[in-house]
C-alpha cells in the first residue's frame, strides 16, 4: 500500500472513530451507570431515538442547539426514570420492560418526529483541534464536535467517581449485593432509580449527537442499533467507564471501516465490512462468554448474569 492510501485510511479511521463512536460513548456510559446499580436497561435504544428526535425538534423550534441538547437529556432522564420506577415494582422484569420501552420510544419518536424530517435545525458547534495542520483532511478529521470532549471528561469523571466517592461506592454496593447495601442502610430502590434515570439522560444526549452533530439530521433510519449495541459494549468494557471510552472508539472505527476501505479502492466484500460493528458485537459476546464463571467486574445483582 502506498503512503497516500495508508494516510487516507488512517484519517478515515481516526476521524470515523470520533465521529461514529461518540453516540456509542454516551449510551454505553449511561448503560454502565445503570448496570453498576444492578439493572439492565435495554430501552436505551428507544431513549436514544427519542432523544435524537426531541433534540432536533427543540433545536429547530427554539433556534438553539443547546436547548435541543438539554431537551434530549431531559427526555432521556424522564424515560430512564420511568424504567427505574416501574422496575422497582415487585416481580417486574427489567429486560422485558426494557424491550417495551425500546419499542415505545422508537414508535413515539417516529410518530412525533414526522414534521421534523424536512426542516434543517441548527447544529451543535465543532471545535477545530487541528487548525495548525496544513492538510485539510486532517483538519476535517480533527474538527471535533463539542460533545466528544464532554464525553471523554464524563468518562474520566465517572471512572474517578465510581472508584473514589461515597455515592460511587453506594452505587457499586447496591449493584453488587443488595442485602449488604440494605444492611448498611442504603436506599436500594432509590439508588437504582437515580442510576437508571441518569443513564437515560446519557442515552438521550447520545441521540442528540446523532441528530445535532453527526450525521446531523433527523430521520427514521437514523439509529442503526447503537442503543442495543451499547449493552454489548458495556460487557466488553467490563463495566469500566474508561473501557467504555476505548470500546466506543473501537466500534466507531469499525463503523467507519466499510466506507473508508471502499474509498481507497478495496470494494469487494463491502457488505462484510459494513457489518463489521455487528460482527464485532457477536465476536465480543462469544469471546466474553464463560459458562462456569462470571466476568470480573460484573455487578452481582445484574439479571443478565445472575
Amino acid at each position, binding site marked *: 500500500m502506498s503512503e497516500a492510501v495508508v494516510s487516507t485510511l488512517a484519517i478515515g479511521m481516526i476521524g470515523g472513530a470520533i465521529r461514529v463512536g461518540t453516540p456509542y460513548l454516551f449510551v454505553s456510559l449511561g448503560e454502565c451507570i445503570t448496570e453498576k446499580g444492578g439493572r439492565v436497561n435495554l430501552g436505551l435504544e428507544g431513549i436514544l431515538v427519542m432523544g435524537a428526535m426531541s433534540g432536533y425538534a427543540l433545536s429547530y423550534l427554539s433556534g438553539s442547539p443547546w436547548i435541543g441538547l438539554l431537551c434530549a437529556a431531559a427526555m432521556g432522564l424522564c424515560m430512564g426514570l420511568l424504567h427505574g420506577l416501574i422496575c422497582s415494582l415487585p416481580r417486574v422484569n427489567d429486560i422485558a420492560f426494557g424491550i417495551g420501552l425500546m419499542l415505545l420510544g422508537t414508535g413515539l419518536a417516529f410518530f412525533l418526529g414526522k414534521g421534523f424530517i*424536512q426542516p434543517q435545525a441548527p447544529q451543535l458547534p465543532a471545535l477545530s483541534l487541528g487548525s495548525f495542520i496544513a492538510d485539510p*483532511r486532517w483538519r476535517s478529521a480533527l474538527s471535533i464536535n463539542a460533545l466528544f470532549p464532554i464525553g471523554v471528561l464524563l468518562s474520566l469523571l465517572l471512572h474517578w467517581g465510581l472508584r473514589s466517592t461515597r455515592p460511587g461506592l453506594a452505587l457499586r454496593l447496591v449493584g453488587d449485593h443488595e442485602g449488604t447495601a440494605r444492611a448498611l442502610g442504603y436506599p436500594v430502590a432509590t439508588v437504582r432509580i437515580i442510576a437508571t434515570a441518569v443513564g437515560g439522560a446519557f442515552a438521550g444526549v447520545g441521540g442528540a449527537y446523532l441528530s445535532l452533530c453527526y450525521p446531523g439530521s433527523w430521520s427514521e433510519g*437514523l439509529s442503526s442499533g447503537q442503543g442495543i449495541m451499547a449493552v454489548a459494549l458495556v460487557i466488553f468494557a467490563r463495566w469500566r467507564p474508561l473501557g467504555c471510552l476505548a470500546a466506543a472508539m473501537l466500534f466507531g472505527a469499525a*463503523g467507519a471501516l*466499510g*466506507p473508508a476501505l*471502499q474509498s481507497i*479502492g478495496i470494494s469487494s466484500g463491502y457488505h462484510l465490512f459494513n457489518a463489521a460493528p455487528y460482527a464485532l458485537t457477536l465476536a465480543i459476546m462469544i469471546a466474553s462468554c464463560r459458562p462456569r464463571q462470571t466476568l470480573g467486574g460484573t455487578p452481582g445483582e445484574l439479571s443478565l448474569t445472575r
Partner: protein
Amino acid sequence: MTLNRRQFLASGVSAAAAGLLPFGAFAAERKLTIGALYVGPHDDYGYNQSHAQAVAKLKALPGIKVVEQENVPETVAVQKAMEAMIEEDGAELIFVTSFGYFSHAVKLAPKYPKVRFAHCGGLWQAGKDPANVGSYFGYIDECQYLNGIAAGHATKSKKLGFVAAKPIPQVLRNINAFTMGARSVNPEISTQVIFTGDWSMPVREAEATNSLADKGVDVVTCHVDSPKVLVETAAKRGVDVCGYHADQSVLAPKLYLTGAEWNWETVYKAYALAAQSGAPFANMTRGGLKDGFVRMSAYTAATPAKARTAIDGVKAKMLAGKFDIFKGPLKDNTGKEVIPAGTTLVQTDLKLESMDYLVEGVIGSTGA
C-alpha cells in the same frame, strides 16, 4: 394470473369502449380510490418525496381519493398494507413505489385481478408476471449524464464521488451515466463509488461522503433514498454536489451544481385516468426528459457558465430524441468490452435495465 372467460371478455369490452368514447367523458363521474406505498417518509428530500408530491397532485383530480402509507419495509408488510388498502378502502390502483416491493405485488396480484398494481422499477416481464402488475420508470440516467457534465466542469481534482445504496441495474446505470457525462468533458476524470448497502443509512452515507472528501473528491452525488445527509455533509466539507431525486439546492445553496429530479406527475396522472375510465393498464411505462418523466434542478450560482452551455446543448439533443448515452465501443472498468463498436443501445432498450457492470472510469466493483 387466472382470468376467467367472463372477466376477460368484460375487460376487452371496456377497453374497446374506452377507445370508442371520447376520452374522459365519463371518467370524471367514476369514483376511484388510489393507494400509494412508500418505503420511507413522504418528506425525505428524496425518492419518497418525489413520489408523494406527485400523488398529492392526484388528489385534486375529480372523483379520485388517495390512501397512502409511508415507512412500509420491503417485507411481507407490503402485502398486508396493500390488502388493507384494497379490502378496507376499495383501492383499485396501487402505486408500489419501492424496488423491493415487486415480489409482494406479484404474489398479491392473482388474488385481486381487478386491482392494478403499478410498480416503480424495471422488473415486470410480459408473459411471466401477472397482467395486472405493471412497471413504470423514468430514464433518470439522462439527468445523471447531465449532472456528470456539470461535475466534469466543476472538478479541479478530476475525482468525483458517488454514494450508492445497492448495486442494482438502475443504480449502476446512474453511476455509469454520471461518469460518462463527466468524461465527455475530460476523459481523465474518474468516479469513486461507495456502496452503503441499503436505501437509508444516514451515518454510513455521511461517513462515505467524508471518506470521499478525504480522498480528494471535489464533487459528489448519490443514489440513496434521501440525499439530505449527503448534501449537508458535502456542504460541511465544502465539496460541490449534484442533487438526486428532488431539488436539494436549499440544503447547500453555494455548492449545489444542479440535480436529477423525478417528475412522476405525468406518469401518475396517466395511470389514474386510465384506471378511472377503464382504459387498458399500461404494463410498461417508460420515459425520459422528453416525455417529462424526469427533469433537471434549476442552475444555481455554483453552476459554472461552461457547464450550463454544455448541458443545454446535450439536453436539447436529448429532448429531440437524438442523443444516446450507451453506445459502443464501451468498456467496463475491468477492461472487458460490454457494448461492441457500432452498437447503440437506445434508452428504451431493455438490455440497459439489466446492467451489471461499471464503465471505464468508475473505481469500485459491483460484487458484494
